[in-house]
């Protein structure tokens, strides 16, 4: 089973979480560990989720993004989704997540 690969980079107060592969329920723990690290770091002011290399995401992935949205708001950090294309863009569009997230 191809699973998600997460690369976490941090510079200038911005954390970028790069995701690759299948973003679904199996990525839950890995994804949470990645963003919790960014959330508890006071120097980080904004978080970007780079979905450029994700080739599939399902509704539980959308749920994880919603959860992160809430936690980022509680931690007063901005959140954006970046590089949504192909199927990812379609799913984000149908879910109308552009009304909930900054999309770059």
């Amino acid at each position, binding site marked *: 089973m191809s699973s998600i690969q997460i690369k976490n980079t941090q510079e200038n107060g911005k954390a970028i979480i790069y995701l690759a592969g299948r973003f679904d*329920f199996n990525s839950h723990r890995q994804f949470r560990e990645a963003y919790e690290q960014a959330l508890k770091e006071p120097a980080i002011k904004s978080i970007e989720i780079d979905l450029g290399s994700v080739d599939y995401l*399902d*509704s*539980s992935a*959308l*749920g*994880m993004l*919603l*959860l992160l949205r*809430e936690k980022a708001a509680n931690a007063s950090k901005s959140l954006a989704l970046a590089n949504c294309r192909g199927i990812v863009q379609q799913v984000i569009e*149908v*879910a*109308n*997540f552009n*009304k*909930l997230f900054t999309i770059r």
Partner: protein
Amino acid sequence: MSKQLKILIVDDTEQNLFLVNRFINKLGHETVLARNGREAVERAQAETFDLILMDVMMPEMDGYEATRRIREISPHWMPILFLTAKTDDADYIKGIQIGGDDYITKPINLALLEARIKAITRIAEIQQQNLENAQQLELYRNENERELQLAKHLISRITRSESTERQHVRSWNMPAQHFSGDIFISAHTPADHLHLLLADGTGHGLSAALNVFPVVEVFYGMTSKGFNISSIAQELNRKIKQLLPTERFVAATLVSLNFSEKILHIWNGGNPPALFMDEKGTIQHRWKSIHPALGIFQDHEFDARSEVFHWPDAGQLILCSDGLIEAQNRDGEEFGLGRLEHTLASAAIDQRHDALITAVRQHTAGLAAHDDVSLATIDCPASDQGDLPAQKTGIKLDHPVPEERACRWKVGLHLTAAELKEIDVVPMLLTWMDQLRLHRSHRSQIFLIFTELFNNALDHGILNLDSELKQHPDGFELYIEQRRQRLANLQHGIVEIDLERFRQQNSEILRIHIKDSGKGFDYRRYISAGISSSTRLSGRGLALVRNMCSELEYASNGSEVTVYYTLA
């Protein structure tokens, strides 16, 4: 001290038997003795041992034969150690092949025997643990199975999924697991509009099925009271937001179909586009998801506005969940929206539903679905063959209603602009009627009377809308949009509603009086329109009301109306 074992010692030589027995007892283990192979088999059949020490050369039945039989009859694994003078490799291999586990050569080295027993003990303990685990697993499995059965039963009852057979409607569901996280349910309003809900909870399986639970009762309850789909969507969103954790939500398409007026309202949040396809296979309209799914927005952020559509010619409404669009074939290729539209367009209108199911099945070719798949097709005929709400021609009043009458109860309501914008008035009135124990058989008629009179007061009296607008192409959509805008900007306006139940002669009568602060409207034009003139999009309702009531009186240029409805 390791645990006490039960050991069977098999030897035809009393001296050996005595020696080994005494040694093993000294080690703290329990022993059972047998003097030949046959006895050993009988013992092993009667009880289980942690270890069997088996001599090879014995009268009646030798150790090999006894071992072979024990292996045959015993369901439990019992380690068997051969005690033998024979030492060559061929014997050793034969013993192992027949089912023995190890050898100790005679004369017996007691230290070696003790070490072997310890080794066997360790294996026996693991064996025992495995057995217990397997039993535990079996228990869990059975318990899980029972719970699944119960959950299945409950879910089918709660969603009333077995009773969704309806005129005009066909539906299909293919769950990815035991439970579908998709539901498709339908119900009629008191005015006989058909409400549909296709909901898809996050994920699949039991947890997804639980997600859609809260929506079911709200949908049925509010539909039966006559709330419109915007009110239902608003309440569903609130309920799901309140009950489910942040990461869980429910994609939903809500539809209200008015077959007699050929109008549908639709709200799509998070589901694939709903389609309206005419008889020729042309898509007349696509309703893409323009809202996030239910349970994401806070109540005040939520946009409950529905889209409206009037179908001039016969066609079909098609709803599906994303599981259908995303169903994959062996190469990982999705079924896709293009294939869905093509399959539908290529089939005759009455074959489309089945053609699409066949196409999806061929595409997935028996592969397990990743997600629940749902499909619903709804026939929208050009002329409605369905029944109007049960009609009872109003019994004319024998006598004029006197000023002084035997009133049983009376309710008065005074609504200003702020309330008119927010409240779904008719269902509220109907809820009161229920509380006042008005017999249910009157429900749909009273609902229709309320709806018609109140909407006339609001639309024509307060909002000053002209029904003629509906006669234009796209007129209904324009009318609804204008209504929405004017209502949103409404500053002034009063609607007064008085309800009264009284008795006259031998009749129980309901008096409904509605007065608005508008300039009135040309009510005569509406009343004179025949009930059967259904080609017109308006006017039918008032003629219907007149037929149901014992008396219908307009006054003050149309801004005041009184009806008398005979209850019994």
